């Protein structure tokens, strides 16, 4: 474990009766890219506000470099924020906005000019320095906000949906640019988004938040391949989630049919949920299929076909296949044991990790 630059210990937040965060725990390693991912209203902005110091945690501790910072005022924290609503100063032009933080720190004028120029170049706004904020488009303003924060080279940069107003191409460009910058300067990023593709593409670590709780923390691959529960599986990527019964280690029963799988460590005959990603399902002929189904819809999406089909038990399956089929056709669906991921009901993240470790060690 590297050292944690930032840590939340049992942090809770209430607005009167309204509980927004419940017992949030996490550590943030210096120099990494973290993403907070969750639906609207789940508490992402609230977490950032507590880190930045605009809001106080109702309970628990916030540590920065090992020091408790609950009572340190916002202007003394080595953190900068890209605000969800940009919060650009309307009475200053673009360059003055970007220069603000450096001026406050008393940096030399010539240095400020140079760094403002660099920052504007970074967000593809060369030559916009003299423009009034009101004369900038939404996407341009968002980039000014990024420049204004990043120019200060803080230890931790908080980005609240910092790319949400950009068109797809610019967004992908900026994603790459931010990622590169983050690696170059070694700044720790905490990025908030509700775009899961963005989260998967950019992050070292993703924290999935729902209802004021961290549901799961892990690398994009971990979270995608081994979601902890129904919410995570459903929220990240597309998935087929079906109820099943764990017969014994490495055997799960779905719809009365036994399948080999790679999960273990559960009670015999425990009720579980089974996740299979649409891209892991393949279409084949009826006799070769592990499941038999009828094709309902087919949608061409450029790279593949998005197919829905229902099996004999009227359960609907989402399949992404590069092979074409026809609507109404009887087909077989095949998948491998590794494609099946079994989730227990109400398993905590610690128990989940422990269970994974226990049987993955067995295999070695």
């Amino acid at each position, binding site marked *: 474990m590297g050292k944690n630059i930032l840590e939340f210990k049992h942090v809770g937040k209430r607005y009167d009766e309204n509980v927004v965060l419940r017992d949030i725990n996490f550590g943030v390693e210096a120099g990494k890219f973290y993403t907070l991912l969750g639906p609207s209203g789940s508490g992402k902005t609230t977490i950032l506000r507590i880190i*930045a*110091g*605009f809001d106080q945690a109702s309970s628990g501790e916030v540590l920065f470099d090992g020091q408790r910072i609950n009572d340190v*005022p*916002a*202007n*003394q924290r080595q*953190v*900068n*924020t890209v*605000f969800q*609503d940009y*919060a*650009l*100063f*309307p*009475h*200053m*032009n673009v360059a*003055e906005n970007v220069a*603000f*933080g450096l001026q*406050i*720190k008393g940096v030399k004028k010539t240095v400020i000019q140079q760094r403002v120029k660099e920052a504007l170049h970074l967000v593809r706004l060369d030559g916009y320095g*003299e*423009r*009034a*904020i*009101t*004369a900038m488009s939404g996407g341009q303003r968002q980039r000014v906000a990024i420049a*204004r*924060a990043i120019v*200060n080279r803080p230890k931790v940069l908080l980005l609240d949906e910092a790319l949400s107003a950009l068109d797809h191409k610019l967004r992908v460009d900026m994603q790459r640019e931010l990622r590169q910058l983050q690696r170059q300067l070694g700044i720790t990023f905490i990025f908030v988004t509700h775009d899961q593709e963005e989260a998967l593409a950019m992050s070292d670590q993703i924290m999935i938040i729902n209802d004021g709780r961290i549901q799961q923390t892990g690398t994009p691959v971990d979270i995608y391949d081994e979601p902890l529960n129904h919410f995570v599986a459903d929220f990240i990527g597309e998935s087929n989630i079906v109820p099943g019964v764990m017969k014994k280690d490495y055997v799960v029963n779905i719809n009365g049919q036994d399948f080999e799988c790679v999960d273990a460590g559960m009670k015999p005959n425990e009720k579980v949920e089974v996740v299979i990603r649409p891209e892991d399902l393949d279409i084949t002929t009826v006799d070769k299929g592990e499941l038999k189904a009828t094709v309902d819809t087919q949608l061409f999406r450029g790279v593949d076909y998005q197919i829905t089909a229902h099996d004999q038990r009227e359960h609907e399956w989402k399949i992404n296949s590069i092979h074409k089929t026809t609507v109404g056709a009887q087909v077989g669906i095949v998948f491998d044991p590794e494609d099946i991921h079994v989730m227990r009901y109400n398993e905590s993240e610690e128990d989940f990790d422990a269970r994974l470790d226990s049987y993955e060690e067995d295999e070695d």
Partner: protein
Amino acid sequence: MRQKALFIVPYALWIVLFVIAPLALIFYQSFFDLNSHFTLANYQDYLTSATYLKMTLNSVWYAALITVVTLVISYPTAYVLTQLENRQFWLLIVILPTWINLLLKTYAFIGLFSRTGSVNQFLQFMGLGSHQLLFTDASFMFVAAYIEIPFMVLPIFNALIEINPSLLNASKDLGATSWQTFRRIVLPLSMPGVKAGIQAVFIPSLSLFMITRLIGGNRVITLGTAIEEHFLTTQNWGMGSTIGVVLILAMFIVMFITGDSREKGGRH
């Protein structure tokens, strides 16, 4: 379109009857002497007479003084009001006195400040003796500021309340202290309110005459007093109108100086 035109009629009538017509009349009157002969003498008199010049300077000086005193009191007041929980209620308390007739308030102050008034009674009770309070510059300034404060507080309050709170967070986020945030963000963004307040206070203060007479005891002679004298006492309407024209010009100048230039961002 027809209907829209119809809605404009009352407003247009009002403007013509009560704004344009009086202005035109004043302008017209200013070119006549006591014997209703067309003349430029009024302007000549005004521009060459030391008395009028002094009066004008007096007016501007006192109006400026009133404005500054009012601003110094009103800005912090408005700022504190915006920080309060029930700010709308407290704002109402500040504005309440404007609903009472000006003359009534002035008489109330005469009662308070007179030789036998409450203030002197209190001073005597404290063993400080009784003092001449009425007809002093101090009492004149006090009452004028008292009357004008709500007109200054209101626009400043409105400008302050409109500032997006996340701008203050952004400023702190970038390392600014509360004072730096105030000076660099709050103050510039509240300037439109300050300007509106200055207009609302300075311009009427130029032509104060009731307070100068009743509280100031005519020790302070302003253009307002002069106009009143010319119209009601000496019956020299021409000269009164001329001074009126001067006042109107002064108002336009103030409005021009404090006008919202509508340029946001970029001082370049």
